[in-house]
């Protein structure tokens, strides 16, 4: 294990932020800490980095108990949401910072920084200052800076949170590819389930300061531990006493065994996908069908359809 977090508790004043959190992160993995804001995921990341101290519990990094170790001795790379670029230093000097404070020989620093700038595609920007870069470029610079000291662990706190949607998607793909190239154990915090599923090998779901579920993106999507995880990871709708994914609903115009009657209220065509909004008694329900299936049903608002979960659907009893 690259990182072992054991029974960590942390409160800010009287507000508990983390409660008995234990997480194992495998060497070389790319892990997402996913959860709603205020769930404690950033605090957990900062505790791993040593920027916060846990009230109780331990943090072990590469087999060494790092709980009381200062951040500069943990050999972790940390990337901040708002980049934390050194504004008075050029891109080159930013990336060189960790090597310069370690008093590495000049030639080595220069060679290593050049390599890293190439890796993050900023070789043309070496002499610019952070203020002259776009948000995405600044974040790539911050990544190169963190990687320069060859950390055992790379920690990213909402790394794409301050970027616009287009750049976000690009950087996501790019981070995934970078990880495949560099293989450093990476943990990133996000509140965006799509981002977590797109990038990570492993997802740790945190809510209200507790670890709710750990698993691969598929496991968590297909076998959510509870209704919260299910609705956080993707769309859900309620069919009878169960929560079900809208794409796991079979609709038919004729009564079927075990099916519930619903009245169509609205049909929304979103290209390939068709969204059918219905009512069962007074409760709204919706199903996501492919265009072909929806067309073959030939339904219109006001019609009655019969709904049941498809054979392999994941059903979760609602909490109520």
């Amino acid at each position, binding site marked *: 294990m690259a990182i072992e977090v054991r029974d960590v508790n942390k409160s800010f004043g009287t507000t508990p932020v983390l409660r008995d959190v234990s997480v194992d992160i495998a060497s070389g993995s790319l892990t997402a800490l996913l959860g709603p804001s205020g769930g404690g995921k950033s605090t957990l990341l900062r505790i791993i980095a040593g920027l916060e101290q846990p009230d109780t519990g331990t943090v072990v990094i590469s087999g060494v108990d790092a709980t009381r170790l200062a*951040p*500069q001795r943990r050999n972790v*790379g940390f990337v901040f949401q708002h980049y*934390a670029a050194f504004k*008075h230093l050029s891109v080159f000097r930013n990336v060189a*910072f*960790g090597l310069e404070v370690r008093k590495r020989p000049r030639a080595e620093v220069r060679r290593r920084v050049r390599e890293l700038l190439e890796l993050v595609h900023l070789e043309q920007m070496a002499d610019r200052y952070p203020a002259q870069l776009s948000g995405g470029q600044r974040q790539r610079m911050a990544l190169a800076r*963190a990687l320069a000291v060859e950390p055992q662990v790379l920690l990213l706190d909402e790394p794409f949170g301050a970027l616009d949607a287009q750049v976000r998607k690009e950087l996501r793909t790019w981070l995934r590819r970078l990880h495949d190239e560099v293989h450093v154990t990476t943990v990133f915090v996000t509140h965006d389930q799509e981002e977590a599923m797109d990038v990570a090998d492993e997802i740790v779901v945190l809510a209200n300061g507790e670890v709710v579920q750990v698993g691969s993106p598929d496991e968590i999507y297909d076998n959510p531990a509870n209704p919260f995880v299910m609705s956080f990871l993707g769309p859900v709708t309620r069919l009878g006493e169960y929560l079900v994914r809208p794409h796991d609903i079979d609709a038919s115009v004729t009564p079927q065994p075990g099916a519930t009657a619903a009245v169509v209220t609205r049909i929304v065509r979103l290209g390939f996908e068709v969204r059918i909004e219905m009512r069962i008694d007074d409760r709204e329900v919706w199903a996501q069908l492919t265009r072909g299936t929806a067309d073959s049903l030939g339904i219109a608002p006001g019609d009655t359809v019969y709904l049941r979960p498809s054979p392999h659907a994941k059903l979760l009893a609602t909490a109520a």
Partner: protein
Amino acid sequence: MAKYLLRALALIYLLFLLVIPVGLIAWRTFGDGLGPVVEALTSDEALHAIKLTLTIAAWAVVGNTIFGVGTAVLLVRHDFPGKRLLNALIDLPLAVSPVIAGLALILVYGKFAPVGGWLEQRGIQVIFSIPGMVLATIFVSLPLVVRAVAPVLEELGVEQEQAAQTLGATGWQTFRRITIPGIRWALAYGVVLCMARALGEYGALAVVSGRIVGETQTLTLFVEDRFQNFDQPAAFAAATLLALIAIVTLLLTKLLRPKGND
């Protein structure tokens, strides 16, 4: 119409309070050409006063720069009991008259006071001597560096410092390579202000210096002394020199200020 009236009013106000008096000093100073000015400023007493003023100002700037940056870091980056009290105390020198500051120092460091007596026995004379004058000058210019640096430090935030830490920088390396460059313009601004205040101080120095000619007479005390003794050319020459220094520092602060937020 009202606009022009206000403008005229402001100009007349400044004219009679600032421009004419300062202008007249310069006029009187250079009225008989440069010769008498040079002569007045190169007398032993004048040269000594200039040297003493610069020495005291330099020490006060060094003291208040170290104290100012340290205190600003303490106030902005740390929480501790008594923080609000410290914050309020720092502004005290602005509210207290310098004369009172001088008297207060005599009460502590005077020959017959406990602390002053103890130092006196060890051969250190504070009051009526340079150490006391440095203390008095530090007192009156105490808040300037803190107040210039603290807001910029606050705005700078902790993320860059934390980033430096995770990259392996020690506390000192972080301070020197990240914090100081981040506040450099504000620090320079505070230092210049402190310098200006230190050069122009009169009241506190009048009390603690004893005004010993050729020994504890600074430039401001020299001006007053010459004026009282009807040596007007020397008084005006020294006054003009002080005014020139003030204008240079003013220009420096103007130069430094807009860069405070880059």
